[in-house]
């Protein structure tokens, strides 16, 4: 009797499983993404072609200022939390695949060009740690020690560079380091000192050639040409503030999402309510755009025709759109209180905007500027689409 009951139960379980498998149509991940819910340590998994939320994943710790990179197959998101948590999220299963707390206080990360290494930038203890992308086991620990006493610097502006390399800046030390993993798990380090005062973020161009660190402590940026036989850092756009007193900066700008368009970079200035255009060949100034406030993100639409800009507190309810060829503001609107981030669909037809204090993400057509949709998401901040997996530096 018991044997029969067991057999029947087994059959029920078997059929249930088969039914489940049949119901779950295979699907791609190329139009998926995540939205960080910064206050609740969770994220929403979204599908941009359907403009919808597919599910939520919880238990990711402190996600204020969180960011993410994606595995090459675009199935997994690696989420870097503020509390040092590194979480690998399975977008298809919509669950945490693996999670480690690797530092006390971290600020972002990168994935190597071959997809095998995840690097995390830490404020505390200052340095970079590198993990195996599959297991999240520690591969290398790179303390950012500087000066005679070997103090540890906060690290910022960590990006991947071609050839299994990572490049990052040392905020306290004013240095840029390259960690080269091309020879295996023990990185070859190249250090550049005296690159400028208080680098606060960095970017690498989509061709993997130019690393640029923004400086808080002085009017200028630091540039490293990674194609040079012997790269040498040099100051660019020195004195862009023209000696004018700096305005208070209530939120540091981000250089990720930098715009290279029409042969010009468009970058946010620090302490001046302007964007600065820079010639991509000569790195000389090529124009300015006066904007609404302290720019935080100046993000190029993927075709490079427009740059969308959001602003620091207390002017963070506004977005402006700059036409790159003319360097004119062609559109301005107020999505709502605390616009934190903008992410374009990979071909740039739509942009997703997180409006933190309204607990929503808004979706706009980038040509007509018409609103296309709105998603209820709690305290949204960073929006990251899987297409980033295919781009250097994202």
């Amino acid at each position, binding site marked *: 009797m018991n044997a029969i009951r067991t057999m029947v139960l087994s059959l029920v379980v078997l059929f249930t499983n088969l039914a489940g498998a049949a119901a779950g149509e295979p699907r791609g991940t190329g139009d998926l993404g995540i939205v960080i819910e*910064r*206050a609740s340590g969770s994220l929403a998994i979204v599908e941009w072609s359907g403009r919808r939320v597919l599910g939520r994943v919880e238990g990711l710790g*402190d996600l*204020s*200022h969180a960011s993410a990179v994606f595995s090459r197959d675009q199935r997994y998101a690696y989420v870097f939390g*503020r*509390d040092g948590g590194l979480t690998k999220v399975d977008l298809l299963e919509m669950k945490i695949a693996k999670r480690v707390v690797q530092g*006390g*206080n971290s*600020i972002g990360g990168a994935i190597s060009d071959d997809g095998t290494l995840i690097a995390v930038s830490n*404020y*505390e203890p200052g340095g970079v740690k590198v993990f195996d992308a599959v297991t999240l086991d520690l591969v290398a620990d790179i303390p950012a020690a500087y000066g005679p006493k070997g103090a540890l610097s*906060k690290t*910022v502006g960590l990006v991947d560079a071609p050839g299994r390399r990572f490049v990052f800046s040392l*905020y306290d030390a004013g240095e840029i380091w390259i960690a080269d993993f091309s020879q295996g798990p023990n990185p070859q380090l190249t250090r550049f000192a005296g690159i400028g005062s*208080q680098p*606060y973020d960095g970017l690498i161009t989509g061709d993997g050639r130019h690393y640029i660190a923004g400086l*808080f*402590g002085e009017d200028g940026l630091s540039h490293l040409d990674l194609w040079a036989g012997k790269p040498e850092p040099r100051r660019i756009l020195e004195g862009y503030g023209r000696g004018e007193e700096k305005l*208070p*900066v*209530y*939120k*540091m700008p981000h250089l990720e999402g930098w715009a290279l368009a029409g042969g010009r970079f468009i970058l946010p200035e620090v302490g001046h309510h302007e964007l600065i255009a820079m010639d991509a060949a000569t790195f000389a100034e090529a124009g300015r755009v006066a904007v609404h406030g302290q720019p935080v993100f100046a993000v190029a639409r993927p075709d490079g025709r427009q740059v969308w800009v959001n602003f620091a*507190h*207390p002017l963070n309810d506004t977005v402006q759109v700059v036409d790159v060829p003319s360097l004119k503001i062609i559109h301005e609107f107020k999505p709502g209180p*605390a616009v934190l981030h903008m992410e374009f669909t990979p071909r740039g037809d739509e942009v997703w905007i997180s409006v*933190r204090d309204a607990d929503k993400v808004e979706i706009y057509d980038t040509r007509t500027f018409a609103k296309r949709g709105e998603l209820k998401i709690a305290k949204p901040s960073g929006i990251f689409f899987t297409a980033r997996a295919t781009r250097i530096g994202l």
Partner: protein
Amino acid sequence: MRIKAKNRRRSPRKPGNIWSVLALGFVAAGGAPSLPALAEGAVDAARGKQLSYLVRQDCGSCHGMTLKGGLGRPLLPETLAGADARTLAAIILDGIPGTPMPPWRGQIDETEAMWIARALKEGTIE
């Protein structure tokens, strides 16, 4: 306006009593018997909520939403134990030149800066 249970206990009896409102402000301002000149006046509960939100969300850009630090230093009671509240209030109002700490004067008045300084030291930011 949501009144915290703690405050409700201190202002009993008649709801809407003028003293309950005053007591609320007083407790919110730190409840110290003698307020320094900088902090005369009070922050009401509604403004206190706004300030708490500002501290977590906007100061949090650099100091972390949980105030454990980031590009800026941690703002936890244990890390601020040795700091004088008036000094902290002055830093909030005027910033620290040469660092990313900006002046908040114009958005936050002296009473509010003092309230934030005390709330940080006491760990009572909501």
